[in-house]
């Protein structure tokens, strides 16, 4: 028999009181289990059961809250608020869900990778080149992480005069992806965009690095107006954020090596450049001198030929002149006769060695 002390409720009130009790008792809880009967309704709502060997509980969430691919059989950890629905059904209202255990993480990674690959997000044609020598870069990382310290050390060792804006964010845990997305959005909304966006995090377990396989984060990196470089974990760690970035760095240190050139190498290169210019100028001067010498030599040859020709002409002229010399004719026995060729006239006969004066006795035409 019910006493007067027994509480009485309307159905709605009872549900409200139970929900209040649940909220006081648990608030938000994390539960690990295996996904079963996973389905998406109307492209908006996600329903599934979370179960283990002996128990099962209904789960509900909005599709936009689902940041990683989930399918039946995957082991997950859900962050949820337990509730009784208006229809009296016990359910977990999921706030977030993440794969749990190596197998599920890998499965989730592969599912999302296949999905994004199909959309062409990893295509080489999408990759933009990074500036060779940036003047302004943006960094998204946790400033307390070892990876960040490595990055800064290598950056300062390699280059100077760089403006570096750093967004301090969480790089692991549930809120990490959203914080990184906000930082990406912040830098992409600047009036003067940084030339490169660097996202870095040091090594960690697969679970630690899971934030970099978050679908909205991967899409935010893909849609960044600023060219991106992502260096997460160690060489062997591959995340979807790495794959979608314009450039993948094996580690945060490697990101610094990629983002700026090494000033020591550049200084050597400068020396080589100046040397090359000097060698080129020397070469050109040498060529000019050789050409000038050759031209001069050619000039002298021409001059020699002209002189030879003139000398030869002179000899010929001399020979001709000698042939016409009257003395030469006289030497051959001829004589030059001067005076009037008339009977009784006086003439002179010039021979090589004497001149004879004679009287003309007879003149006959031949």
């Amino acid at each position: 028999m019910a006493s007067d002390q027994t509480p009485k409720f309307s159905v709605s009130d009872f549900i409200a009181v139970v929900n209040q009790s649940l909220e006081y008792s648990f608030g938000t809880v994390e539960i690990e289990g295996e996904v079963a009967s996973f389905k998406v309704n109307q492209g908006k709502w996600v329903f599934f059961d979370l179960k283990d060997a002996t128990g099962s509980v209904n789960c509900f969430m909005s599709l936009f809250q689902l940041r990683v691919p989930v399918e039946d059989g995957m082991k997950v950890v859900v962050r949820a608020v337990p509730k009784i629905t208006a229809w009296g059904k016990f359910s977990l209202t999921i706030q977030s869900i993440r794969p749990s255990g190596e197998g599920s993480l890998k499965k989730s990674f592969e599912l999302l990778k296949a999905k994004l690959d199909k959309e062409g997000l990893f295509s080489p044609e999408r990759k933009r080149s990074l500036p060779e020598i940036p003047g302004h870069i943006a960094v998204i990382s946790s400033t307390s992480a070892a990876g960040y310290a490595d990055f800064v050390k290598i950056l300062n060792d390699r280059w100077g005069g760089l403006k570096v804006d750093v967004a301090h964010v969480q790089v692991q845990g549930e809120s990490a992806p959203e914080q990184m997305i906000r930082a990406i959005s912040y830098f992409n909304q600047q009036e003067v965009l940084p030339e490169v966006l660097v996202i870095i995090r040091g090594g960690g377990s697969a679970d630690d690095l899971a934030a970099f396989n978050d679908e909205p984060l991967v899409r935010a990196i893909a849609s960044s107006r600023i060219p991106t470089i992502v260096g997460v974990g160690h060489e062997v760690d591959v995340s979807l954020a790495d794959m979608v970035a314009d450039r993948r760095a094996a580690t945060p240190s490697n990101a610094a090596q990629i983002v700026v050139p090494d000033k020591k190498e550049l200084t050597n290169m400068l020396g080589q450049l100046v040397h090359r210019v000097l060698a080129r100028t020397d070469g050109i001067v040498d060529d000019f001198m050789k050409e000038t010498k050759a031209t001069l030599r050619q000039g002298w040859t021409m001059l020699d030929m002209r002189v030879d020709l003139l000398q030869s002409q002179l000899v010929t002229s001399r020979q001709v002149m000698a042939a016409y010399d009257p003395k030469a004719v006289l030497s051959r026995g001829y004589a030059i006769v001067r005076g009037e060729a008339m009977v009784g006239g006086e003439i002179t006969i010039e021979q090589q060695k004497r001149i004879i004066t004679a009287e003309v006795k007879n003149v006959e035409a031949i």
Partner: protein
Amino acid sequence: MSKQSEQKTVSQKMDELSELVAWFEGDEFELEQALETYSKAEKLAAEIEHDLTNLKNEITVLKEKFDA
């Protein structure tokens, strides 16, 4: 070092140096200008080296909070 030159970034100076070097290797090369251009290139290379040795990175951790 000229005031105008000081205002240029290392990257801009590198571009300028590359242009000067390209002039030496291009068709517009003239021996009469070579000495002047070489002096310019040598000076620019020294400036870049000086900048690289002395410039420090300006790292600013933003005050903005990115948590919700």
